[in-house]
């Protein structure tokens, strides 16, 4: 198995756990982003201020903000946390599929695929949970793309 396969497998395994903890039936792009943040090859991400805790805080902020726009408070109800048992999800959701499509389109061949391509595939999305969470948390997504792709901002 090539190094990139090991890397993607590790990211997906972490992402599955994040999705499971989230109660999600599918892996979405934001779960992959968290997977990248807790897997290896993440030093640049952490240097950019995107450690797992910062990403989780940004995602929670987006969730609460989106609910507030329709007058709903995420903290308004208090029920016991549901018990989560069984296997974490394996299916990719639409946003994760798009992230992989964008990642693969950045590399001409699979041999050229690098860990950063998946990160860029996630960051390239202009609509959805990840770009909204990053924007609300004050991250400059185009600058992050430039930084990780090695292009001048």
């Amino acid at each position, binding site marked *: 198995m090539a190094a990139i396969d090991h890397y993607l497998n590790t990211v997906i395994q972490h992402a599955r756990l994040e999705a499971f903890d989230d*109660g*999600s039936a599918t892996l979405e792009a934001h779960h992959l982003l968290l997977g990248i943040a807790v897997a290896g090859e993440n030093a640049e991400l952490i240097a950019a201020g995107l450690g797992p805790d910062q990403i989780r805080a940004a995602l929670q902020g*987006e*969730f609460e903000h*989106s*609910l507030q*726009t*329709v*007058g*709903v408070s*995420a903290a308004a*109800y208090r*029920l*016991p*946390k*549901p*018990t*989560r*048992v*069984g296997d974490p999800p394996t299916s990719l959701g639409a946003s994760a599929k798009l992230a992989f499509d964008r990642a693969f389109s950045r590399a001409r061949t699979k041999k050229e695929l690098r860990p950063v391509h998946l990160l860029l595939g996630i960051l390239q999305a202009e*609509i959805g*949970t990840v770009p*909204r969470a990053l924007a609300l948390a004050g991250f400059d997504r185009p600058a992050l793309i430039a930084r990780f792709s090695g292009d001048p901002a």
Partner: protein
Amino acid sequence: MTNWKLVNYGCFMPPELTDPADALAAVAALRRLADQLEEAAVEQAMRDGWSWPEVAEALGITRQAVHKKHAKRLIEAGVPLRRR
């Protein structure tokens, strides 16, 4: 009819919802919140001794649907389940 809708839209929608991105994100967040609430509420109801038909009726869905969605998780979690 159109005017009625416009008047009510203007009355009830907060200013942020003039942006479709916010409205669509709210839909996604509400679905996620509803799923979380359903998981917690069904588990709490079953722990309190509710039956599948009672939970299904309260949710407005069939007994089969609620059973299919929650039974495996609750059984593995060791929640005592009433048959009727």
